[in-house]
Structures are given as structure tokens and as C-alpha cells.
């Protein structure tokens, strides 16, 4: 093993930047999808209606217990076989990761909603607030504070998880890094730079969630 040389990789920085953009895109789409589906699943599970609870439970357990890599492959290669209509490598990965992360968000949100005291629902009810208003103005704002830390961790986990899209050739950060490593024969240096890039992407997310948490706590007392 020779000396570490980062010089040869510098020429590939534009490619790495392209990869970063794709990684950000994958993360944004799948987090947005995951948050929406996760909230719906959490409410379905919380509802107490078997016909909502049961399908939500099945969904969550299916996506939590099968590898996300396989889910991506299923969607990319399996969907065309199933419905004769395909998604490209970016959207297959983004949707599969979104569906997957939704299961984790759902469990986090459900715990957050359960953490809001029953008496808050009752207080809202005797004031005449309907279900929608009770969720929007009373329960979810309180649940939000409960779920911020776990949600932040999950989002960071997902950003790094977008690297699984490499499996179907989505040109995201890790994939670009692997190609550069092959061309330069400098895998250690390339992957180190890739790791630094992931850090630069995820650490601000951690900081943002911490700030949000501080703000929500401060406004409460």
C-alpha cells in the first residue's frame, strides 16, 4: 500500500458534485414521501379501527423487515414485469426508499401521538373541536416535539441509505465515487472524500433538528 494521494481525484470533483445533487434529490423525495405516508400509517394504526390498523400494521412490518436494497431492486426490475410500466433508476430508488422509511417514521409518529396524554383529546373534544382540528392544533404539535430526535436520526440514516441506489445504477454520490475509484485506482482516497461529503450533507441536518428541538422546548416554558 502506497502513500495516500488525493491529487488524482481532484479532477473528478465536478462528477462528485453531480453525485451529491442526485443524493440530495433522492433524500428529499424519499423523506417527503416517507413523512406523508408515515403520518397516514401512524394515524391509521392509532385510529383503533381494525380495517385501518391491520393494513397499516402489515405495511409497516413488511417494509421494516425486508432489506431496503431488495425493495429497490423489486421496484426497479419488478414493477415493469408487474404493471408493464417502469420508473427510471432515480425514481425507483427514491420511491422505494420513501416507502421503506415511511414504516420507520410511522412507528416514531405513533409513539409520539401515544405520548400525548389522552386528556388532551378529551379537553379538545369538550371544547367542540373536531378530529381534524384536534390533530392539527392540539395533538400533532405536541407529538412533533416528542418525535423530533428520533425523526432527525432517521432522516440522517436515510441520507446515507440512499447509497443503496448504487445497486440499480442511480448516479448518486457513492456510485460516482466507486466509478472514480475504478478509474483512478484510489479507492481509499475516493471513498474518504465520499465519506466527508456525506458528513457535510448530514451534519447540518443534525444541527437543524437540534435547533428545532431547542426552539420548541424554549417556547414552552
Amino acid at each position, binding site marked *: 500500500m502506497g502513500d495516500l494521494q488525493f491529487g488524482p481525484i481532484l479532477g473528478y470533483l465536478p462528477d462528485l458534485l453531480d453525485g451529491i445533487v442526485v443524493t440530495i434529490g433522492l433524500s428529499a423525495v424519499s423523506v417527503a414521501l416517507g413523512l406523508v405516508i408515515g403520518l397516514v400509517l401512524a394515524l391509521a394504526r392509532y385510529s383503533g379501527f381494525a380495517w385501518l390498523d391491520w393494513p397499516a400494521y402489515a405495511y409497516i412490518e413488511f417494509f421494516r423487515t425486508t432489506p431496503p436494497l431488495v425493495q429497490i431492486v423489486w421496484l426497479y426490475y419488478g414493477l415493469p414485469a408487474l404493471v408493464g410500466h417502469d420508473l427510471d433508476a432515480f425514481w425507483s430508488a427514491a420511491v422505494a426508499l420513501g416507502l421503506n422509511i415511511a414504516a420507520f417514521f410511522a412507528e416514531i409518529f405513533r409513539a409520539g401521538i401515544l405520548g400525548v396524554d389522552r386528556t388532551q383529546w*378529551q379537553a379538545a373534544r*369538550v*371544547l*367542540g373541536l*373536531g378530529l381534524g*382540528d384536534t390533530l392539527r*392544533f392540539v395533538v400533532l404539535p*405536541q407529538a412533533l416535539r416528542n418525535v423530533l430526535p428520533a425523526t432527525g436520526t432517521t432522516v440522517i440514516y436515510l441520507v446515507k441509505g440512499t447509497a443503496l441506489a448504487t445497486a440499480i445504477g442511480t448516479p448518486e454520490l457513492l456510485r460516482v465515487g466507486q466509478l472514480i475509484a475504478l478509474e483512478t485506482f484510489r479507492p481509499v482516497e475516493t471513498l474518504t472524500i465520499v465519506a466527508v461529503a456525506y458528513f457535510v450533507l448530514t451534519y447540518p441536518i443534525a444541527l437543524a433538528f437540534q435547533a428545532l428541538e431547542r426552539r420548541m422546548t424554549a417556547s*414552552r416554558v
Partner: protein
Amino acid sequence: MANEARKLVVIDRVVKRYGGETVLDGVSLDVDAGQVMVVIGPSGSGKSTLLRCLARLEAIQKGRILIDGALVAKGADEPGPAPDAAAARLSHDVGMVFQSFNLFPHLTVLENVTLAPRRVRGMAAAEAEALAMELLGRVGLEDKRDVHPARLSGGQQQRAAIARALAMKPRIMLFDEVTSALDPELVGEVLKTMRGLAEQGMTMLVVTHEMGFARDVADDVVFMDRGAIVERAPPGRIFSQPAEARTRAFLERLLEREGGSRRSR
């Protein structure tokens, strides 16, 4: 039945069960407009359940509940159409205050009070705020409008909860042991607010162990035991010469305990 129309609240043979347990066993009670009714009874006798049925937090299995002549709840096998749940909820006739305040912790005092008028009544922000400030004035909390509940004492929180309930202009207010969670020195300010409400003619159903309040403010005192109303009488009578042995036994125990705790203070 003919005079049901004049009664603000009619509770008619109400049965409430949790699973196999019968918690209200055919309770009938009516309250005139402007009356203050104090409900007393041992733990587990069904006092809270009665209030919760009135507030429509619980469904009833038998009997009927009417407010101002309108059916708001009924058992499944009662004749006649089911009450219109949405209409009943929208009539906002019942306000309730809980032992544990149950203020919304993420909202300021003002936001706690204005939320329901704005969302349920569709009141404009300025109008709701004016209403809230008037009510906060009545409970002595104008200067706490922008404070979150965690910054308030228990007594202040409970007064804010009373203002929040009043903001929906209920025709009857239910109080479920609203001073039981308070430090003794904070009980007085909440009772004073409730006395003020009673003087202004609010119809009130009050579950409490504060016998002084019952003596001074109640028109009638109701003694409940094991899911049934044992006795109903004006405070002067029920405290000095209760008709039922069970009422007497309960009051004696209560007075003993009160005497004991007063001496220990």
C-alpha cells in the same frame, strides 16, 4: 315528563357500563337553569362518569340525556331517533373543567382560550381575542395572556381552564374535582372564581369534596353511591339531617378526615 322542557338538564334513567361493570345504574337527575348542583360520594361511585356522559365523552347504554329539551344522548334501545351527534357537538352547550386542568401546554394562555372559538365558531382573531381578554379578566389572568401553562401556578392554570371553557359560552359548566390537585393555599382562588360564576347565574354541576363551597353555593347536594343517586337535598338539610344512613356515614367520614387534616395544618 311534562315539565322536562323547563329543565336545562334532564338525566333520565341513565345506565353506563364499562365491559361488564355497571358504573351508572339508572341515574335520573334534573337541573334547572341557574342551579348549582354539588355531587358528592365515595371514590368509584360514578361521579366523574356522570359528568363525562353529560359532556358526551362517554356513550350511554340505557336512558336519555336532554339539554334544554334537546336529546343529546340515549341508550341504543330507547325509542326514537338517535341524537344528531354533529349537531349536538356544535351546540357547545356543555363546558367541562378537569381535575388536572388539561390546558394545551404548547399554546399560550390566550391561544388556549381562543382556539375553540376560532376553530369551532369561526370567530375572527380580533373578536376571539377580545372575548378571551374579557374572560381572562374575569378569572384574574389578563397579565398572563402570553404565558405558557407551565409558567403558571396550579390555581392559575385551573382559572385559565375555566376561562377556556367559558369561551364557548356553555349553558352548563361541569367541574370534576377541580381543586383536588391544587396546593391548599391555591384552592381558595379557584373556588372564588366558581362562586363568581354561580352568582352570575351559570348552571353548574360540581363534583367536589369542598363542603364549605357546597354549603354556601349549592342549591342542591346530590349524594351518589355505587352508581346510583342515594339522596338529593339542599345543603342545609343534607348536612344537618341526611335522610339516608349511607349519606350520614359518608358525611361523618368526610368530616372526620377534614377535621383531621385541618388540625394537622
